[in-house]
């Protein structure tokens, strides 16, 4: 019995440590969900009144005078503007999304410290969808209710956002998807989905073109490996559009061939035997590790890249680091952590160093920060026009060009799609020695991604592409 008691004590110690870690995480995200308040009273729109003429206040400056009259309906009251985020805080993308939400929270805290928007404080309300579509729909029901939010600054997941696209139109509510499916700009898919940055398809075209012409030695021979579904096959479609336009031979077509949870031997074998020297992957980081590791174990060498979020800088803390350093090029829609000398980066890094100095460095912060920037600028425009109703926010979004201060290409929404759709993306070289897995935000640091081409890149193929809908549509 003595022995058993010792063993029990050891396990109890583990439980205490686990609980401590768990409570840390809880506290980091506890600021997100807000208590549900009584629905705001609807003021009758005073149509005859001219909207306030003030310009939206500069981001760093305290809010200027409140417009003489701002009308509002749901998610806004005298003192607050409620902004929502439906996030994957416990599902497969939770490690990424928790950091995205942390950056958003820090952004809104700063907005509030600077006086809010039109004198109203931002009430940032976060709910977990666990990357589950039915749960996402339940969370959406809460947030679209009369006592819900005026705008969704994040809707996590492609199928999840697709599931609420029609409801968004019916409820007159706008949302920024945490997904880069090329269908979002298509009005038939959902007029109230306001995508951030370029899409999987254009990202693939840009990167395949850049790598084939600047990194691969000799003629490129392309292999395409992807998940089935909108994410994987939208990215694969873009890679094949690039190959066709540029005369690149596709020596292995593994579109939809990477099945999560299965042994990847068939895909690795097909890849290795194809003789490809350029590999484009659209999966999750764990599958990238299995594919790269499995191929490298046979002696296979090629230039590798893939859609975001196929790669995760945390892979540099694994045995794969030397292979990633020598063979992988990261493709993204925006700048990675502390990469690129632009005002937005300086601003974000400084703010997060103050807000969450002990958190690890991460590429995910830029996504959360820029999502909040987009929502902020849209709401500022709505407030400046005197209309913070959901309809007013939608109208403001369609008239806004979001300035990301260099963190990503500026994003417009209104007018002809081909005039405003974002086509640029970024390419980074991976330098494992720059990454320190233990680095925290307070030290600045790097995730090991070094910007190539000096800034965003757009392929001639992407530039000339006439957008007529998603590159991939499930049948």
């Amino acid at each position, binding site marked *: 019995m003595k022995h*058993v008691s010792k*063993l*029990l004590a*050891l*396990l109890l110690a*583990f439980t205490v*440590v*686990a*609980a401590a*870690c*768990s409570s*840390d*995480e809880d506290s980091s995200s506890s600021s997100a969900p807000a208590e549900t308040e009584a629905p705001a009273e609807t003021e009758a729109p005073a149509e005859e009144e001219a909207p306030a003429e003030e310009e939206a206040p500069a981001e760093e400056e305290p809010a200027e005078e409140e417009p003489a009259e701002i009308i509002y309906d749901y998610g806004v009251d005298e003192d607050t503007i409620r902004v929502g985020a439906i996030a994957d805080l*416990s599902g*497969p993308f*939770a*490690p990424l999304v*928790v950091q995205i939400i942390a950056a958003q929270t820090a952004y809104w805290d700063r907005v509030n410290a600077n006086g809010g928007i039109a004198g109203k404080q931002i009430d940032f309300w976060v709910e977990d969808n666990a990357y589950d579509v039915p749960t996402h729909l339940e969370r959406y029901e809460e947030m679209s209710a009369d006592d819900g939010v005026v705008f969704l600054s994040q809707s996590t997941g492609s199928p999840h956002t697709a599931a609420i696209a029609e409801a968004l139109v019916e409820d007159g509510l706008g949302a920024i998807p945490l997904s880069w499916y090329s269908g979002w700009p298509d009005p038939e898919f959902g007029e109230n989905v306001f995508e951030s940055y370029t899409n999987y398809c254009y990202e693939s075209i840009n990167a395949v073109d850049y790598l084939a012409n600047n990194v691969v030695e000799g003629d490129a021979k392309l292999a395409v490996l992807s998940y*089935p579904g909108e994410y994987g096959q939208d990215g694969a479609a873009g890679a094949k559009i690039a190959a066709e336009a540029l005369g690149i031979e596709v020596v292995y077509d593994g579109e*939809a*061939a990477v*099945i*999560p*949870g*299965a*042994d*990847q*031997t*068939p*895909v690795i*074998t*097909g890849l290795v*035997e194809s003789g490809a020297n350029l590999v484009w992957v659209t999966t999750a980081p*764990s599958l990238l*590790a*299995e594919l*790269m*590791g*499995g191929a*490298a*174990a*046979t*002696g296979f060498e090629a230039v590798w890249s893939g859609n975001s979020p196929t790669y995760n800088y*945390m*892979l540099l*803390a*694994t*045995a*794969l680091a*030397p*292979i990633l350093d020598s063979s992988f090029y990261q493709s993204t829609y925006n700048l990675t952590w502390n990469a690129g000398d632009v005002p937005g980066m300086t601003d974000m890094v400084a703010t997060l160093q103050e807000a969450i100095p002990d958190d690890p460095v991460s590429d995910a912060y830029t996504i959360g920060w820029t999502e909040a920037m987009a929502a902020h600028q849209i709401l500022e425009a709505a407030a400046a026009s005197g209309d913070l109703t959901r309809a007013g926010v939608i109208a403001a979004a369609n008239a806004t060009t979001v300035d990301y201060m260099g963190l990503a290409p500026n994003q417009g929404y209104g007018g002809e799609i081909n005039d405003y759709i974002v086509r640029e993306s970024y390419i980074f070289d991976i330098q494992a020695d720059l990454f320190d*897995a233990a680095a925290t935000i307070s030290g600045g640091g790097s995730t090991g991604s070094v910007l190539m081409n000096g800034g965003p890149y757009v392929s001639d193929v992407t530039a000339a592409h006439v957008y007529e809908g998603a590159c991939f549509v499930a049948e």
Partner: protein
Amino acid sequence: MTAIPVLLAASSVDTFIQTLFKALALGSLYSILALGFVLIFKATQTVNFSHGALALAGTWFLSMIFMDWDIPGRWLPGPNWLHWGIALLLAMLVTAVFGLIIERLTIRPMIGEPVFSMAVITLGLEVMIRVIADDAVMLTPRTLGIPWGSDTFKIGGASVAWSYIAAVVMAAFVFFVIWRFLRTRTGVAMQATAFDQEAALAQGINVGMVFAIAWAAGSALAAAAGIFASMSPWAAAGVASREGAFFAFRALPAVIVGGLDSVPGALAGGMLIGFVEIFAGQYLSGQAGILGYGYQQVIPYVVMLIALLIKPYGLFGTEEVRRV
């Protein structure tokens, strides 16, 4: 018929050697997992559906012990591989203790109750352990500090990962230990309990202790399988991630084919399924368009069905065994 020329065309000595080592390694992992299932089934007549979650917990215990707390490196001089090996054994030990507690709190009170109820309890445990383990590590994938990383060596022109060799050595080690254990007094008691619980009780065997030992050993084996399955070039390249919890379910056909209550069956079933999966994946990859993507997932179950049609209790299973 088109598969045959493709198979021949793809065949080369180097490719065959690489495929052989890969199959041996996957077969070893499946065998270790199957052995854990078998030990618990032999003692309790229950299929432990929480085996994958225990494997995941084991990987995180190793990450905490070796990477976070630098145990035993903070006290013991010596090379990194030695420290890692000791940390591996400690992680298996902690997971065994974890298994003991689970058995004492949730399984022991169910002695005498329907076996189906116990199996459902283990299903619930699977979800609980996985979710709690996720929270405990703040959802962050954790590295395991594998000493050989993604290093490979050459046999002729064939490139072979050291992780494959490590998996085979680990399987040989655990099967040897279990084989020796089953010949000890306690091991014989376990086999007697598996054969007839009431008769074992009448003979003065402490059945509760047998249950506890089986759960502890099964949990330690789950940890070993989880850790070795997390190595490069396997799923997560030396990262303990939540996907690891689901790997154990891939070994179920191996358990059934070998026989739920047979230690040699665990070895044979694991190797058979591992070889079939890897060789089919390698040599039928050109037929994926016809067979369908993901065909390699189906083949182990096809083998299992065929084996069960021929031997309903598995290749080495005892016919009196009740299935769950």
